[in-house]
């Protein structure tokens, strides 16, 4: 019997993290953007010394992959894929807009003083729940703190959690998944079962339980938890993509020619297998930010005095009748941040995977 087929391999790809973009479905194993490269090269021409007869398939450039350029198929080293992708991205307005938003968010996460001179902790109870006033365009919250200043300072928690958790999950997941995919055997089987165990726990429930016992209120337990439950998803993608790339002729050739495992993995497989991981990780970043805010909203994630959109939304939700502005700004900022990362992931996926266009 072939290896057990798990429909969720496809689903995690398509639906990214606890939900994501909506990419490929159907077929077997994750979609690998690099897959078409070497095959395109393999198809010989009857005129170029290829065998005059035989069951090879002649590629018709526009038939299977309408989005692909007619001139040059992607080179098997992966460079063609990345150059092509960058070429596409620079012209994609969605990419430019989302990249600019993210750049802006990162800058104000590091230096919030640049655009907000106030103190996010300073409250003036006399002005509690007041609407916009000169110099305070978003109004005041329940404790008379400036909503604008707090919204700006809230970016830091979200961006820190998002980036750190994604980096952690991506590094851990692709290392484990990549090795499992490359070496196979018992280590692969064990890793798949361990990943299944983490998949068996609904992410929000796990977060509630874990963070209710690890109570520090800072960002690090939240980051640690997301890495803990996030890596299996990345490892599946990485595993599937390494398994696909490993089967390609040029990788087999490298192995036959005596390249060491390490060299094969790093020079030949990693550059071609990393694309799906990057795509899924980018989209995951957005949902991790959303997850952090949700946990903070439920009172188990970040806790005051940390300034977080989730906490502010939670306290504003109770006051929505009297002071909707308190909810509007942090909720808007949060949604735009998540949207920017998801759009970025979408754009990167489109660029790396011409088949899905």
């Amino acid at each position, binding site marked *: 019997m072939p290896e057990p087929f798990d429909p969720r391999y496809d689903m995690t790809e398509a639906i990214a993290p606890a*939900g994501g973009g909506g990419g490929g479905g*159907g077929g077997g194993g994750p979609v690998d953007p690099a897959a078409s490269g070497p095959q395109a090269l393999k198809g010989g021409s009857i005129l170029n010394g290829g065998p005059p007869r035989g069951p090879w398939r002649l590629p018709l450039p526009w038939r299977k992959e309408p989005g692909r350029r007619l001139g040059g198929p992607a080179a098997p080293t992966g460079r063609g894929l990345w150059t092509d992708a960058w070429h596409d991205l620079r012209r994609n307005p969605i990419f430019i807009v989302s990249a600019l938003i993210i750049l802006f968010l990162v800058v104000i996460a590091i230096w919030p003083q640049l655009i907000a001179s106030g103190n996010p902790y300073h409250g003036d109870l006399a002005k509690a729940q007041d609407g916009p006033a000169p110099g305070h365009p978003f109004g005041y919250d329940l404790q008379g703190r400036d909503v604008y200043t707090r919204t700006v300072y809230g970016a830091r928690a979200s961006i820190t959690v998002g980036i750190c958790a994604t980096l952690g999950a991506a590094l851990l997941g692709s290392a484990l998944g990549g090795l499992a995919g490359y070496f196979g055997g018992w280590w692969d089987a064990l890793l798949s079962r361990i990943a299944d*165990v983490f998949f*068996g*726990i609904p992410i929000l*429930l796990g977060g*509630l*339980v874990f963070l209710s016992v690890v109570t520090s209120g800072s960002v690090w337990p939240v980051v640690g938890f997301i890495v803990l439950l996030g890596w299996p998803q990345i490892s599946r993608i990485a595993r599937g993509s390494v398994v696909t790339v490993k089967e390609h002729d040029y990788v087999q050739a490298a192995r036959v020619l005596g390249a060491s495992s390490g060299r094969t993995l790093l020079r030949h497989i990693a550059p071609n297998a990393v694309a799906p991981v990057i795509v899924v990780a980018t989209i995951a970043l957005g949902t991790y930010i959303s997850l952090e805010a949700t946990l903070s909203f439920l009172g188990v994630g970040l806790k005051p005095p940390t300034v977080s959109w989730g906490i502010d939304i939670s306290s504003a939700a109770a006051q929505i009748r009297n002071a909707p502005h308190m909810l509007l700004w942090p909720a808007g900022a949060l*949604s735009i941040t*998540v949207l920017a990362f998801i759009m970025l992931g979408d754009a990167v996926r489109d660029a790396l995977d011409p088949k899905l266009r």
Partner: protein
Amino acid sequence: MGRYTLRRLLQMIPVFIGSTFLIFFMVYALGDPVAALFGDKAPDPATAARIRKDLYLDEPLWRQYAHYMGQIFSGHFGTAFNGQPVTELMASAFPVTLRLTLVAVAFEMALGITLGVLSGLRRGRGLDTSVLLLTLVVVSVPTFVSGTVLQYLFGVRWGWASPSVSPEAPLTELLLPGVVLGLVSLAYTSRLTRTSIVENARADYVRTAVAKGLPRHRIVTRHLLRNSLIPVVTFIGTDIGALMGGAIVTERIFNIHGVGYQLYQGILRQNSPTVVGFVTILVIVFLLANLLVDLLYAVLDPRIRYA
């Protein structure tokens, strides 16, 4: 098919043990269930020791786990913070959450698949673009934000729906919360449907169907949809388990006395039997849903069935 089912069931067992042990470990090893019982007061050492013995807390962790699982499989889930047996809480909470989840799934299926199919068939047109944009926005707004806003607009501002749900949670009151719960999944369903349709529409077998001279509606329903909906159906199946676990936010916003509400109370009051009991059941539901999905997949796709 029988062997396939059996293999899947056997594969589920280690996953079940692993997942529940992980939860158990978090609550009983990382947390301190005895200290939690006493709240802010310092526990009397003698009493604490007795409770520890009663709960097998002085034993190694795997023995505690084995004991706890033994209890669960004989139907003893322990008592909640208010002295009620956890099983009683479950009996009242699970039907409510199940109803809520069904509303969400019905909404997700009806609207999500319809939108996905329509936009997939009209790729690149106005409807397609607006569905894509709409789903992007829906995915980006976290449930707790959309829930709060929709509750305010529909429940308070316009008075079209009741802003909070009574303890009996009749189906009519669950409509708005169900929509909120299913909103993000709806977006994924329609995107997945669209992608699947677009991918399959390019498939060679669709071209064959055209070359056979079949009418368009037959090509779409018999050939295109039959293939495209396989991943969608399996996604929705998996999602049922995830929605029940994720209902906690929605239940909190609308004050629904379901699983999420009880779980939340258990966590707030650090009542370990409630937390571990509910989570164990949810993990079982989640795993069973996945098992059913795998079987459904095999039924829908002959390539898997005969693999």
